[in-house]
């Protein structure tokens, strides 16, 4: 479904991604893991058009596509929850959730009532119980509430690919459950889901395939059932685990 081939990205002197390959099949959850600063968010921003890649291809259904800005990604049916959320603090929850895709009524004006109703339902489905009103400004929300808004925003739309960058980082126990459920449900509906997480329990619970980034290189992409938690952790921290992963030269010499 979604495929990356040989993606490179540098920020000035910093080489953030080096020859990264990745495959995310439709109907599967692909976990993308890696140490802090491994390049996960950078990779996702490249897919989403927030950054443009220096080299390499992005393929959807085998076809190379050009993603120059986030509109292109949206047009291709790629929906992303970013780690840094990117909500407009001066807008309220409803306004943020429908930003860029506002509903309009017959007259072409904003259909606030429908949007408000849908926003409430979406939030409720994610077990958010402490939001006082969907007309609250995002500036007044707690960290977890914001994250929920960002997630709710992304699942409102029919997409072919849904990418979630550490979606449960700030969430409580119940909310995390809901989101993991949601991820599974999305995959079951045929969506290609990419999930970034540092929580190995979560990863092992929902992932079908696990991709490990190490210092900007793809150490390995393996099926969930073929690996143990220990192996994944080794891949994350050292770039290789037994036969899996980068060659010794790459994983040590490659000072980024």
């Amino acid at each position: 479904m979604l495929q990356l081939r040989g993606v490179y990205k540098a920020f000035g002197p910093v080489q953030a991604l080096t020859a990264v390959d990745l495959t995310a099949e439709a109907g599967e959850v692909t976990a993308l893991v890696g140490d802090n600063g491994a390049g996960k968010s950078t990779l996702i921003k490249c897919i989403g058009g927030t950054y443009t890649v220096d080299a390499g291809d992005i393929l959807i259904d085998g076809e190379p596509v050009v993603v120059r800005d986030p509109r292109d990604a949206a047009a291709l049916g790629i929906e992303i929850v970013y780690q840094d959320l990117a909500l407009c603090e001066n807008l309220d929850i409803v306004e943020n959730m429908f930003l860029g895709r506002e509903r309009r009524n017959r007259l072409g004006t904003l259909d606030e009532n429908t949007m408000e109703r849908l926003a409430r339902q979406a939030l409720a489905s994610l077990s958010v119980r402490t939001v006082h009103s969907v007309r609250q400004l995002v500036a007044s929300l707690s960290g977890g509430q914001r994250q929920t808004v960002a997630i709710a925003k992304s699942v409102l739309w029919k997409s072919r690919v849904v990418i979630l960058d550490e979606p449960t980082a700030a969430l409580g126990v119940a909310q995390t459950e809901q989101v993991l459920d949601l991820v599974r449900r999305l995959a079951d509906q045929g969506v290609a889901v990419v999930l970034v997480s540092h929580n190995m329990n979560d990863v092992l619970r929902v992932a079908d395939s696990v991709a490990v980034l190490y210092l900007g290189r793809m150490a390995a992409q393996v099926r969930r059932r073929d690996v143990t938690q220990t192996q994944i952790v080794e891949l994350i921290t050292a770039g290789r685990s037994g036969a899996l992963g980068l060659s010794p030269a790459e994983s040590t010499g490659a000072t980024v």
Partner: protein
Amino acid sequence: MTTQLDDLVEHDEPQAPAGLGDYTRSYLARLRGGQLGSLPAIAGLVVITAVFAVVHQGFLSAYNIEALVIQAAPIIIMAMGLIFVLLLGEIDLSAGTTGGLCAAIMAVLLLRHGVPWWLGMVAALASGVVIGLAMGWLRARVKIPSFVITLATFLAFQGVTLILIGGQGSVILPSGSPLIGLENSFVPMWAGWVLLAVVVAGYAAVKINDAAGRRRAGLPATPTAIIAVKVLTVAILGAFFTYVMGLNRNLTTNAFFANKAEGMPWVVLLLVVLFAAGHFVLSRTRYGRHLYAVGGNAEASRRAGIVVSRVRVSVFAICSGMAAVSGIAAASLLQSVQSNAGAGNTLLLAVGAAVIGGTSLFGGRGHMIDAVLGGLVVAVITNGMSDLIQGSNSAGFEWVVTGAVLLLAAGFDAVVRRGSPT
């Protein structure tokens, strides 16, 4: 929808208050919490008006109220346009001289090329929009900071106006022209009342329709009593204003004098239309929503699929277009276009008006009403100051007092707003 939301109840979402008492309580709580809306600007306006009414006999005469309105109109219109730019956290230093230039283009077309007045007006407006598009392009595409772009055009347009008008210092508009009528003739009395009725009815219809829609959608809505109070307030203020504008404003009367100065200036109509249109765009359209979004967080807006550069270009076009309208109104007021039209403090005062009204210079916060209230504050100050101090050095003292009053108005505003979140 990928998620199945239908079977989920709206559990635990606290219902917004629906009764009148609830509504009032929650309004007061919001006030205490610092969400003051336009209250500080209104309070400031009332206070300085009261002060001038005391120190300045005849300040609230029908004659002076009319003078105030027609003097305020160009400032308000320019501030309305600037709010679009300010919402994005940008600045347009050249709005004043753009207005002057567009008015000059109009005047020259009218007088030297015999173009009909309406065509001249269209040309002025078109020039404004084209100028705005160009500046917006420089900002959005070439990525020059808007301060520098508009500083450059501020200077350049002054030059162009000067060249156009030439050495006489000003071009006088043809005296019978409807252009002059804008600020100097009056809507017939009956039409004024009809206009008021239309405005009040429209306002009521929108409010009632909104509330009904929300009830239908099962959402908490403004209680009817509150709507009634709001509509009544608008109606009373409007009626008072229409009544005052209906008084004959000719101060000296004698046997020769036939014509009475009474009725609402046409420019009031223009203000009402521009305000309604601007308010509609900002609060009820996707475009308006996107303005707030880009001003609040440009990167988030981009990720949400908004074409930020297009929004940037558009606000400059709107601002310059409105500046052209403002320039036309100013030309109508002075019945002529000066070679230094729109230079000097024109722009600073208009931006000051928007800021005093409550618009933020950092983007993301502002409403049309800010331009109206802030513009009135500025106009009241300039009008109240003119002729307040006499004689030697009066110019200097008036500057000083103008600055002091401006500061007082803003300080009042700030103190009332204190403790508010932003």
